Each structure stands twice: as C-alpha cells, then as structure tokens.
C-alpha cells in the first residue's frame, strides 16, 4: 500500500479492531497475511521479536494475576504485526505529507516533522545499539540485564542529546512553528481493495459471534 493516508488509516483501523476483540484480532491477522509480505516483514524488522518478548512478559504477568494473558498476547501480537507493516513501507517525507494534508501547514506540519524525526531517530538507535552491543561483547559483557541497562542509558542519553541539538538547530535557523509543504501522494494498485477489506475486517469484528455461527 503506497498511499500514506490509506496506509495509516488502515493501520489505525486494524490496530483498534485487533486490540478490542479476539475476533477482530483474527480478522486483522487474516488481512495481514493476505495483503502484506507477512513473514518477510517479520524477518526484516528487528524490533518485532523484542516487542513480542516484552508483550509476552506482561502477558504472563497478567495470566498469573488472574487476567486473560493469552488473549492479550494474541491481540498485541496482531497490533505489532500491523505496526511492522506500517513502518516497513515508510518513505522519507511521507508523514510530513500526511500531517500537512490532514491538519494544514501549522499543526500538521509540526506533527509531520515530529513523526519524521522520530522515525529517523529509530534507525539511528538501531545502529547505535549494534555498536554498543559489539563494544560490550569485546569488553566481555554477555547479553542480559547487565548489558541492557548501560546500553539503554547510552541510547537514551544519545537520543536526548540529538533532540536538543535538533531543537537548537531549528531555533537558530529561525523555526517558530509550522511551514509550507506541498503534499504528494502515490497510489498502488492494491491500495483501494486492501483498505476496503480492512474496513470489512473491522465490520466483522463488530458483529456478534452468533450472527456468523450457529451456536447450540
């Protein structure tokens, strides 16, 4: 799906659908399997597995404290898969297009700029994390809590420092708020059908189970 408006809208709709019910999550998963490169996305995105481990940890805690950890894990799994699809197709400048189209040159521009900077930072964080892990391994520090804490500290410090530098740079260049940006959108052949079936998936999740199956 190339049109960022349809991609973001579809991702939001499917995430909400998946989060609110098991049926919705199953429908969204079905959609993800058909309309995305599915498993290839998971292999390509290095954030999927750590995110699932984190969700798995909370799901176990929920299950142990009397909640429905299994359901939570499944719903969150689908939300993460949808997010990985949304980010995999990202092209630089797209969120600026979306922001300006949606909310205009002031608030839209600012939100778009924020999203672009956040995504850019995500790539930098992954590169930094690789370097930190390599340096730790050579220092003889094995993977685990002992290695994650210093790595997290350095990543956080780096991200804050970069944010400060960017803010100063924008201020020095005279940025106050908003800006002019002419949004441009490209459409892929499957954009409309994929968006249509995402709406269908959301609709199915709203139907009571008895409307679909004959229950005894």
């Amino acid at each position, binding site marked *: 799906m190339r049109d960022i408006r349809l991609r973001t809208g579809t991702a939001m709709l499917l995430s909400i659908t998946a989060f609110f019910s098991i049926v919705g999550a199953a429908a969204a998963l079905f959609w993800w399997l058909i309309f995305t490169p599915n498993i290839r996305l998971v292999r390509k995105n290095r954030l999927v597995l750590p995110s699932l481990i984190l969700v798995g940890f909370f799901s176990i805690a929920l299950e142990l404290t009397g909640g429905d950890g299994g359901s939570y894990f499944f719903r969150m799994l689908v939300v993460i898969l949808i997010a990985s699809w949304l980010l995999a197709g990202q092209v630089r400048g797209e969120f600026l297009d979306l922001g300006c189209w949606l909310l205009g040159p002031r608030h839209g521009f600012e939100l778009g700029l924020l999203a672009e900077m956040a995504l850019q930072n995500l790539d930098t964080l992954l590169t*930094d994390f*690789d*370097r*930190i892990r*390599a*340096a*730790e391994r*050579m*220092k003889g*520090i094995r993977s685990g809590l002992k*290695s994650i804490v*210093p790595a997290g*500290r*350095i990543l956080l*410090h*780096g991200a804050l420092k970069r944010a400060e530098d960017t803010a100063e740079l924008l201020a020095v260049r005279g940025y106050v708020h908003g800006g002019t940006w002419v949004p441009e959108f490209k459409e892929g052949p499957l954009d409309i059908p994929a968006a249509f079936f995402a709406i269908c998936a959301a609709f199915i999740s709203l139907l009571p189970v008895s409307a679909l199956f004959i229950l005894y």
Partner: protein
Amino acid sequence: MKLVLDHAGVRRGPWSLSANGTFTNGVHLISGDVGSGKSTLAQIMIGLLPDSTGTVEKEAIRAEMISFQFPEYHITGTTVREECESWGLDPFPLLATIGLSQKHTEDPLRLSRGELKRLHLACILSRNYDLLILDEPFSSLDVFEKQRICAILSGKTDGITILFTHEQSVFPRSDYIWEIQDGQLHLCGSPPECLARWEHAPPVIKALIERGKTPENISQEDLEAAACAI
C-alpha cells in the same frame, strides 16, 4: 600473528569497498578521505558487518578490540571510576595520567567529548590486544593529547595495531602505511621509502620530500628532525 583480507569488502548501491592485504605485527596507518570507507573497513576487519563479502582470516589472534570513533558506545560504568574498573584497570593511577582524578565520581556521559575520548583511549591502550583497531582515535583531542597518544602508539612493540585516520598533522611512528582510494585499499609500504608514494601524505611531508629531506618516519620527532636538516 596476522590478519589477512581476501577481497574483503562491501557494496552499497553505486559505492563499494574492496580490500586485499596482510597485516602483521606493528603499527599500520590507514589513511583516506572522509567517506572513503575507513570506518566500514574497520568494522569488516573486526567482523561487525554481516553483509560484507570476501574473507577475513585471523591467525593466532586471541584478544581483539576496536575503538569506535564515538567513545560513548563503549561506556558500561555509571561513574568514571566504574568505567575504568569495567576494563579491569585500577582507576586512580590511570585517571591521574589523564588529569581526570577529580572526576572519578562523575557520570562518564557528563564528561565532554574530549575528556571521554581521553578516558576511553587511556583504558584501551592500558591493555594488551593481539589486534587493536582504532577508528579515528584523534578526533575530539587537542594537539597535546594527540601527541601523548602517538607517543604511546609509537612505543608499541607487540600485536597488530591498525589506525584509521584522516589526521593531517600528528602521527605515531608507523611500520606500514596504507590508503583507501577509489574504493580500494592500497599498501604504500614502509616509511621512509613509501612516503613519496603516499597520496594522502600531509602537506608538511610532501614539502619535506620536495626539498630532498624525506623524514625517517612520520612521527612529530621524525618530521622535526627532517625539517631541521634543511
């Protein structure tokens, strides 16, 4: 003890890097323009680039270390003292040599980039490695500190030390000079014979050669000795 590169390299779109060569005991200086692939080659040598091609063979190398250009990546301690200890070093004598004794309780991330680089290099150079790769070790350092580091490196007799730098003023005594040009690693040779062939030689060395006073090596002392002979 040796490091052998056989068509080791990487391709990224129209840009590519390829390296052949054997690195034996001694100090190897690899020069090249900014963006020529020095940091990339450093990572290939240490085995940190999964998408690299060719082979990197290490013979009798048991302990290896890379010093990244940005010293923050190496920090694991929450204080300067802890950071020294994380390298297995006694902090106080080490901090005294680099003038950071007063800052032993400070968070390393609160040091200036120059202080952090000084601390990091002091830690790394206090240990013995069979293969030590230094990526831009002189960045963020003042001339005095560069000279101090060069003096330590010039005195190194064991192991393979490989320096990647685009520095143009201060160098350690080097056994071999290499350069990266047009995506290829070339061995210029050993000083003083190789200096005339060294494309990235700093202007001062080129000027000395033009006047018929080729320095014995590239350290500050060698350059001064050649200059005094004019």
